[in-house]
């Protein structure tokens, strides 16, 4: 199986599984507890059907949308994800360049393996910095100042990781970062020699935003759950978020808001957007899916801030459905991560290109030429829901 055999999400996933040592594949692919929420994030889209309109003259489709004051050419973007150089040796460099090529937003994690400075010198398209609120206030200030100096357009504070989720696949595979070669994991790494060679020869593995402050930065092996539970400040509250928002002074979002109440509070503290998200099902299993919750949130705050639906997207039609409900844009992690693991920048470009082609085709089939043509009148819910 090669890149040219990848026609959709599932193909990329399969190729990624072939290329990655199993603990790393399962770190991406896994979620919390019984992974009920993870599955629901996608299956929720199937409880609603699209109702197309015909004979509308749909030769030219404009997929652009504006979020956080920036026009982007696609109504979806790359959510910030950690540790990308574990997935492919080019890591954030590959994803950033692919995002630039399609002129969409590139989300950079606090746990990125390439620095904000390097990314900002590399791409000039819209960039989002994802912030984790650490106990160490010096580290927080440094992250914020560096992202500001590197001219990032948006800051997103992640609020759904107050403690680590129970990722049982990681418990079984013994996933840590950087990878620690225990006897049991050794085998899974040994059968993927290309990954090992690239990992050891293409530059040292680092967490540039953290390493001056904490030993978890590079030298010691730690699990992600452990990082969340020991390094992040669990007492984080609305005051802290408000302070950060004003300290940043630009477009600011909360990532991982699910309740209407919290969405309203986000508006109150000065946020310009929120990501309705459960972290891809990786935190609270049993949590509602973003798509199921979307309409309530859009109704409450959609006219005041940018509401972004995040998680579960595997098809262009999934995005059409979220946009029809009123999301300003869609955001996803795995939708580009498997492609990154499968083939680096070329893989991510192929994946983004495919979603774009799907969206264009589906917009035409729906009888729509621009995102604002989509509305709830295009949708029918199967059950007695909204």
């Amino acid at each position, binding site marked *: 199986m090669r890149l040219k055999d990848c026609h959709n999400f599932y193909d990329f996933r399969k190729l990624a599984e072939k290329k990655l040592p199993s603990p790393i594949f399962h770190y991406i692919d896994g979620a919390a*507890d*019984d992974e*009920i*929420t993870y599955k*629901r994030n996608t299956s929720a889209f199937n409880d609603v059907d699209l109702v197309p309109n015909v004979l509308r003259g749909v030769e030219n489709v404009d997929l652009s949308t504006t979020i956080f004051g920036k026009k982007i050419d696609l109504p979806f973007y790359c959510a910030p994800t950690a540790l990308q150089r574990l997935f492919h040796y080019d890591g954030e460099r590959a994803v950033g360049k692919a995002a630039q090529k399609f002129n969409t937003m590139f989300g950079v994690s606090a746990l990125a393996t390439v620095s904000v400075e390097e990314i900002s010198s590399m791409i000039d398209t819209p960039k989002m910095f994802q912030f984790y609120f650490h106990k160490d206030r010096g580290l927080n200030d440094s992250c914020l100042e560096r992202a500001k100096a590197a001219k990032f357009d948006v800051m997103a504070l992640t*609020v*759904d990781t*107050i*403690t*680590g*989720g*129970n990722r*049982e696949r990681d*418990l*079984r595979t013994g996933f840590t970062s950087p990878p620690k070669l225990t006897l049991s994991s050794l085998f899974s790494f040994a059968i993927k020699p290309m990954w090992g060679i690239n990992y050891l020869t293409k530059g040292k593995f680092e967490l540039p935003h953290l390493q001056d402050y904490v030993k978890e930065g590079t030298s010691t092996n730690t699990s992600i759950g452990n990082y969340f539970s020991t390094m992040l400040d*669990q*007492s*984080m*509250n*609305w005051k*802290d*978020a408000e302070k950060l928002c004003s300290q940043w002074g630009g477009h600011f979002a*909360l990532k*991982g*808001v*699910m*309740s209407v*109440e*919290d969405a309203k*509070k986000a508006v109150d503290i000065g946020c310009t957007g929120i990501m309705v998200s*459960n972290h891809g099902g990786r*935190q*609270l*299993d*049993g*949590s*509602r*899916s973003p798509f*199921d*919750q979307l309409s309530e949130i859009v109704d409450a705050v959609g006219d005041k801030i940018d509401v972004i639906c995040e998680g579960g997207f595997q098809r262009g039609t999934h995005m059409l459905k979220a946009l029809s409900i009123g999301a300003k844009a869609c955001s996803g992690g795995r939708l580009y991560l498997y492609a990154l693991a499968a083939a680096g920048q070329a893989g991510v470009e192929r994946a983004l290109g495919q979603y774009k082609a799907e969206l264009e085709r589906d917009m035409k089939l729906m009888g729509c030429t621009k995102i604002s043509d989509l509305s709830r009148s295009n949708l029918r819910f199967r*059950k007695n*829901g909204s």
Partner: protein
Amino acid sequence: MDLDDCHNFDDFRILAKKKLPSPIFHYIDGGSDDEITLKRNTNSFNSCDLIPNVLNGVENPDLTTTIFGRKINMPLFLSPTAMQRLYHPDGDKASARAAEKFGTMYSMSTMANTSIEEISNISSGPKLFQLYVHKDKSITDDLVERCKRANFDGLCLTVDTIVAGNRERDHRTGFTTPPKLTFKSLVDFAVKPKWVFDYFTNKKFELSNVKNKTDKGTNITKSVIEYINEQYDPGMNWKDAEYIVKKWNGPFALKGIMSLEDVERAIDIGCTAVMISNHGGRQLDGSLSPFDQIKEISDKFGDKVEIILDGGIRRGTHVIKALAAGAKACSFGKGYLFSLSAGGQKGVEKMLQNMHNEIKRNMKLMGCKNLKELNSSKLAYR
């Protein structure tokens, strides 16, 4: 595979399956008829989603609640289950000690292999005794008296076992107690020599609480089904229940009621708690699951009686959903029995630790500082 590899219910179940002779494993694992209710008990939690709140400063959520007049340190406790010596040589002692360690309630079945007095000697933790009403009324009076003397905190009367459910797995495996070695079952036991060794080298198998009152308690090899049908009083009615409530005169629950009507009557006869339960899907197949029923009952009676959800709990989030729907606490059976089979007291402790961690972690992710903050605004039914 050992205890270190057990991260959740399914892991403990697999390890228990490895350790137990198959008739015993299936006695725990099975339900009645087609096991529809057994499955629904857990699946019903998936028809409902949680809506978390963020930025609430939840470093240390308080997991305590009060049931049967005792404060417990987590809102999940051990349901009463019969014949624990079959699952591990330490039986009820292991369960009681583990529960005490975690500050939660241990429950003793009428059909335990350890006596009321033995348990009260080894544990000062919260204790509930589960009563079956035998045809011989003097057995009931005797049990109630002994629980009083032994300082049990509460009593529950099981009312969903008026006849035995149709546990088809037991028909097939020929499960009896004490285990009877037929040729067919011999093979099942022979492949688990460690279990057989433990069983025969430890204390004699008996139904310790009723052994002086009925010869069925020890000598005769009976299937549980036969025992229930022969010994328990199918004529039991509300008057009998009321008699026991009065006699006990302390925190009291009916275990195994499902209808709003019966909850109301339970309150009328003086119950302080109700355990909403279908006996873990082991009795009436097709019966409603406790979680599907809990909200309606709590909305109506939550301020009058302690509502306990019993059945289907496998995860911390299940407990959280039950509490958000109005339950005061939850109890589980198979959840700790598999861990008991897998590793005795250590096993039960590990399971309780896992559940404690899960409840605590997920309370933080829900943005809740204490159990009272869980309410129906946190739930979205599909």
